[in-house]
């Protein structure tokens, strides 16, 4: 049924992780509503969702920039992206 979507296990894992992340922040928001808003180092008022968005978008740019400048493999940008995600949830 879904063969037209040309799934691979790598992309499936990527989307499962993505939707799981959205699921987790949704669950936290339902369980403890309205507790995540704060002003971080960027002087922006962000919620948990904003921080996840920024973290993922930044990770995409880190990977693309590394790929454009140094090429493969992508282990270093993966580490940088994880560090960026942690930074987003911790400080932004």
């Amino acid at each position, binding site marked *: 049924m879904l*063969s*037209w*979507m*040309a*799934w*691979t296990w*790598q*992309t499936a894992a*990527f*989307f499962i992780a993505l939707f799981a992340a959205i699921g987790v922040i949704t669950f936290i928001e*339902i369980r403890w*509503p*309205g507790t995540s808003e704060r002003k971080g180092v960027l*002087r*922006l*008022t962000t919620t948990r969702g904003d921080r996840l*968005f920024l973290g993922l*978008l930044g990770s*995409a*740019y880190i990977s*693309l920039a590394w*790929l*454009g400048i140094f*090429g*493969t493999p*992508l282990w270093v940008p993966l580490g940088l992206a994880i560090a960026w995600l942690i930074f987003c949830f911790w400080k932004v």
Partner: protein
Amino acid sequence: MKTQNQKAWFFVLPVLLLVAFNALIPMMTVVNYSVQETFGNNVFFWHGVGWFEDLLNSERFHAALGRQILFTTIILLIEIPLGIVIALAMPRKGIWVPVCLVLMALPMLIPWNVVGAMWNIFTLPDIGLLGYLMNTTLGIDYDMTQDPFAAWVTIVTMDVWHWTSLVVLLCYAGLVSIPDAYYQAAKIDGASSWSVFRYIQLPKMKQVLTIAILLRFMDSFNIYTEVFVMTGGGPGNSTTFLSIDLVKIALGQFDLGPAAAMSLIYFAITLLVSWLFYTLMTKDDGK
């Protein structure tokens, strides 16, 4: 502030389903394509991030992206100030209000492909009104199909004609919502017309301007139909924007992998710039 209940989420569900079918699932398919190679018949081979690497080092992609950024910059620099000026000049009361509003709305009612065809015929040197006027009457050498500069001028003029109205109407909506008391106070204080604009009208228009800039950025950054109908990306590659190049790769060459990778980079750029515009323009709203 504590949220009392979460029932509102159920009202959002139908929209979520709709978005899933018309945006999310196609987007997921594009991600799947971007890491694979296909020779048709729904048979795919794993290619990893190879397409992204090729694309990020491709001169063709850099050139198309450069043209796209240049086009969007020119469009925003012309349409936003022009839209504000026209909105300020429009009458606020009387019989001319509906006349102006209808005149402003007219270009936006015309479908994109019709706009392209109209301007194409309009500018043809032999039969088009503008082309004939420029070449024969004024003696200016103007041929959009041969000269890249003429093609750019024509496309920019076409877009300004088609979409400045949107900025005008949004700004006008912002302007008419300003109560008269503000102007009266400014008059008592002896404020100049510049001060009235800078400290009353511009701040009151800020929110609609945010929307206008966002919409014009996204539309001009994703422009396809008008340019495709008018120039097809030519002469040469001079008006081959990212969107046109993308369709050439995806549908012309049927290279789904590179096209998917290009779409995702295109999407990431649009997303980042839109987020930056929105965040910077609404940053102080909470104060």
